[in-house]
């Protein structure tokens, strides 16, 4: 039975300026994009003023930037070790996904393997982000609460969390996003 619902219309109304994605699209991992901004005279003053730009939300949001050579100042040796460890962690037994919450400037990472049910996941998220998500219900979706939890599945579609059995969910979930409940309404409407 096809459990998926089309979510294509969901993002039409979303202001993409609030979609905080840093770095080039598709580069979730951290390979250094050695686009050096050294030698570019404009760079430093640009950076100085870019954090005060008005085009972003009024709450501070870091401007999109390429990776800068030699910044942060972490020695090559240490960088290599951390990269090895990170790779081990991600290919190991954990199941780490990124979690973003609308309005929060930074993402968090979560190990899905730590949870055994939707309830536990919600609890974990609520603690992490200090918000109330509430449980998904077939009929109401997340209409009862301020926030709704969505996830990006293997095919790149955004779905409401709680739709599918837990096991199916953790095997297809690539990323989580806590949205404002009103914006997630679109998802639930496609019944």
């Amino acid at each position, binding site marked *: 039975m096809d459990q998926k619902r089309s979510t294509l219309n969901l993002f039409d109304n979303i202001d993409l300026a609030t979609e*905080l*994605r*840093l*770095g080039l699209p598709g580069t979730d991992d*951290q390979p*250094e994009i050695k686009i050096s*901004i*050294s*030698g*570019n*005279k404009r*760079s*430093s*003053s640009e*950076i*100085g003023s*870019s*954090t*005060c730009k008005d085009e972003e939300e009024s709450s*501070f949001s*870091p401007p999109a*930037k390429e*990776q*800068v*050579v*030699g*910044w*942060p*100042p*972490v*020695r*090559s*040796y*240490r*960088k290599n*070790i*951390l990269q090895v*460890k*990170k790779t081990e*962690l991600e290919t190991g037994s954990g199941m780490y996904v*990124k979690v*973003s919450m609308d309005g*929060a*400037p*930074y*993402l*968090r*990472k979560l190990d899905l393997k730590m949870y055994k049910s939707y309830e536990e996941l919600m609890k974990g998220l609520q603690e992490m982000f200090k918000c109330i998500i509430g449980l998904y219900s077939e009929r109401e979706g997340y209409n009862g609460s301020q926030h709704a939890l969505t996830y990006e599945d293997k095919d790149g579609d955004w779905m409401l969390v709680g739709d599918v059995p837990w096991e199916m969910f953790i095997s297809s979930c690539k990323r989580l996003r806590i949205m404002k409940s009103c914006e997630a309404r679109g998802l639930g409407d496609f019944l």
Partner: protein
Amino acid sequence: MPTMDPNRKKSKPVDLVDSVDSRVELTESTRSCPFPDEVLERVLSLIDSHKDRSSVSLVCKDWYNAERWSRRHVFIGNCYSVSPEIVAARFPRIRSVTLKGKPRFSDFNLVPEDWGADVHPWLSVFSSAYPFLEELRLKRMAVSDESLEFLATSFHGFKALSLLSCDGFSTDGLKAIASHCKNLTELDIQENGIDDLGGHWLSCFPESQTSLEVLNFASLNSEVSFDALEKLVSRCKSLRVLKLNRNISLDQLQKLLLHCPQLMELGTGTFMQELISGPVTEFKNMFSNCRKLVTVSGLWDATPLYLPVIYPVCASLTFLNLSYATLQSSELANLLFHCRSLRRLWLLDTVGDKGLEAVGSCCPLLEELRVFPADPFDQEIFLGVTESGFVSVSRGCPKLRHVLYFCRQMTNAAVATIARNCPDFTHFRLCIMNPGQPDYLTKEPMDEAFGAIVKTCTKLQRLAVSGLLTDRTFEYIGQHAKNMETLSVAFAGNSDLGMECVLKGCPKLRKLEIRDCPFGNAALLSGLTKYESMRSLWMSACNVTMNACRMLAKEKPRLNVEVMRDEEGSDDSQAHKVYVYRSVAGPRRDAPPFVLTL
């Protein structure tokens, strides 16, 4: 006895340079000092600090000569500031050399390969001048296997080799050292760009090698023969520092510790056991004989299951390096509960603010804290520590003097509080990882934070700034940082004024390194009279032109003004990377094509 003038001006470079001819012979008629040379030399031989020795050498000719004959250790902070020939001519009886090469920003890939700092010319001269050389400590030097082989075979009494942040060699070079240096007491290999071809080098230590006191191979990846290692450790009864690499498992560590109860510093290796053959209690007494242990590092893969094994030695630890162990806050808290005597602590930011609260509550004697980022390049992730963790530590650890702190958010108010709590800072390096980031609460620049630091912490010697900073920060630094010797600046400032303030206002400034700042020619040239009293200046991705550099070079012939050409060759009138340093050796003769000496 002539007394030394405490107000001796540092208008001349003092490390090794002065105008006195090192070959001057004294005659009776020029002697002003009543002491025979032998007595004076004997007295002066008790002075270790190279700064004191520099002072001594400036008193008069007698003292200069007595000092140069009695000096056993020479420290060369910039290998291009002097030549090996000059060193050998002035100091005939050196047994130990410390040599530093590349500018510090080479650690962060800002200096191209093949820039220089080759140790070989030094070794060539030393092989004839100092055949009895015993110790060599190198930092940021280019070292080849040939050089290591040359070292191992040319100096028969050679004892101690330390390589930190060097590159160009492989484990084959280490084989040469292990095989030939019969009196080796120290082999300290740290964080180098080494070509790891395997662990066979360790097996090259002959059976007759029993004098090792320091063995550090923690940064090498290949597996060594455990059998060879165990035998080596058991026959070296004076071993006091042993730092193992990640391949050494927990039970192998246990075996090793049985052989060296006298150990003072231990790098534990992985601290994990893949296949649990027995209960954890098997390891419970592993450290019970290590009564002299004061430093522990490594713990690469330590988990809550095995960490408690180390608790019995924690009470006497003074330095704990957890900067490669991904501990969470509770694991750290449980560990630190036992570590009340800690003076130095290095951590990964996985411990979070909660972990730092534990630091504040458990370690009242803490003097040094370094918090490294576990995920420095993933800009989206918010993990790690914030201003709150730093404040917690400052509350519980008023003796903090030395801090390196990587974080993603900070406020002026927090830093002001920290400065009030810890007025004794000598080294303060704060790295807000997002370039140009303001106070995240007030959205203001971080000027007041560093203002608070320089105003309150009068003993500050080293400062690294970050975040959104205007010229104001540098005004504060110039006004207040009177003991500051090293300053690191990135993505900061508005105009030349910033750099000018620092150059004008900081009398003890020795090293200034700047990247990606809008400082230009006026700023560069404002330091015209200052640079000779400094070790070096680095400026990259600023607004400096070639003409200004040429002008500086012309006005100050005792400075080497080097410009590194950008490979893209975008704009030849801009000086993309400038490195200025004083030297008595004249311009470099080994400069690669991309380094222009003006």
